[in-house]
């Protein structure tokens, strides 16, 4: 049942992403067809959202006039393109920011009886993830996965927020990054389930507890169900983070389309509203990704009694 909902949901997300893709494509096609400066602008502005081999920096101009911004090194290892791109830089920036800030916060909090300032803020989120996400979905048995889920929450949050500062980019607005996070979530969900109920039970659960004659139908569905959950996580985060950026780009682009300053107050006003919405979405999506991962892990951990019921059914 749950798998069915998730599949449906994921279909809806997939559809949304497709529409998005189609819109971007048509914009690109339009630009190619019309060769007009205004149409080109949209595709140019959209490039701001895409990953790139260069990094835009304030007050920096590349000596090579054909290259926009600082060139990043290209790396190829074992036939895989491991080039450092803009999103990799922001991935690292988020990681470094978290390592430095949270280490300092942890030290400061350990010294004081009452946390202040940033320490207090971080603690609010830590307590929230522990009590409202992990304990609520997984019980006390989930506490050993708390470091993973905390890292997940803070990492996604900071990557989301980095896209909202000037010259910044959301690494989570890149489907490869969200796919990477979903791959980790997939393994964590399976590990949690296998550790809680054993490999045998985990395998038995793939049969859905139905009569063996139905296994040829049930087993593929259950295996598909394992993948749809993280797939939905991947698409949801990517689409949410990209969507807001595209709307802002489109709104600002209107000024250049109409080539009138009169449009500017309206465009900027709407863009500001969307920006504030994105600020909220940055927190919301970090929460949703972490909460759903925790929920799926919790479901896998609690199926022991579920499996026993199935055996009674036989």
């Amino acid at each position, binding site marked *: 049942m749950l798998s069915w909902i998730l599949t449906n949901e994921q279909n809806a997300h997939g559809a949304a*992403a497709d529409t*998005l*893709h189609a819109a*971007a494509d048509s914009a690109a096609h339009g630009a190619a067809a019309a060769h007009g400066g205004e149409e080109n602008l949209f595709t140019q502005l959209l490039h701001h*959202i*895409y*990953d790139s081999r260069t990094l835009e920096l304030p007050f920096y101009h590349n000596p090579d006039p054909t290259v926009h911004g600082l060139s990043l090194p290209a790396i190829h290892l074992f036939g*895989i*393109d*491991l*080039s*450092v*791109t803009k*999103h*990799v830089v922001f*991935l*690292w920036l988020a*990681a470094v920011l*978290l*390592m430095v800030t*949270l*280490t300092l*916060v*942890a*030290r400061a*909090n*350990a010294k004081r*009886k009452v946390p202040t300032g940033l320490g207090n803020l*971080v*603690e609010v989120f*830590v*307590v929230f993830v*522990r009590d409202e996400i992990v304990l609520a979905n997984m019980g006390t048995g989930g506490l050993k996965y*708390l*470091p*993973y889920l*905390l*890292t997940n929450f*803070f*990492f996604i949050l900071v990557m989301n927020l980095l896209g909202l500062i000037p010259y910044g980019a959301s*690494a989570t607005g*890149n*489907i*490869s*990054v969200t*796919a*990477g*996070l979903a*791959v*980790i979530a997939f393994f964590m969900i399976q590990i949690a389930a296998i550790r809680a109920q054993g490999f045998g039970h985990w395998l038995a659960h793939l049969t859905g507890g139905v009569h063996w004659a139905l296994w040829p139908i049930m087993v593929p569905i259950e295996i598909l169900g394992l993948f749809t959950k993280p797939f939905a996580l991947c698409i949801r985060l990517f689409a949410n983070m*990209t969507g807001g950026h595209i709307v802002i780009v489109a709104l600002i682009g209107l000024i250049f389309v109409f080539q009138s300053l009169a449009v500017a107050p309206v465009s900027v006003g709407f863009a500001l509203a969307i920006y504030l919405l994105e600020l909220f979405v940055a927190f919301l999506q970090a929460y949703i990704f972490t909460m759903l991962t925790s929920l799926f892990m919790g479901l896998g951990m609690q199926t022991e009694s579920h499996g026993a019921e199935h055996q009674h059914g036989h």
Partner: protein
Amino acid sequence: MLDINPGLIIWTLVTFALLVLVLGRFAWKPLLQTLQTREQEIADALRKAEEAKKDAERMIQENKATMDKAAAETARLIAEGRAMAEQVKGDIVARANESARKMLEQAKDEIAREKDAAVQQLRGEVADLAVSAAEKILDETLDGARQKKLIDKALQQLPKN
């Protein structure tokens, strides 16, 4: 936009793994430790405060009971003292009355006895006087005139007595 870049996935995995290791050791462990210690302390403090409150309430109750008992005891003692005083007073008054009555009776008896003695004595003396008077009269019995005179005299004296 939707094309997957395997390199970026690998970078994500590597970065995340590193981040989990570093944060797990230098951030989450001390942060959660601090949190748990503080929560424990708060819970302990609350529990202790609750206990102290209960103790205080119990002591107030005890004090009140002691005070009540003392007040009751005082009241009882006063009442007892008062009752005893009343009784003593009654006794004293009764005894005083009794002794006054006795003294009065004694005085009466005394008076009666004195009176009897006086009457007795008077009787004796009157008899002696009568006898001596009779002797004198007998000594002087000579003439009838004189006798007559004496009888008259006696007769004259009679109504006066």
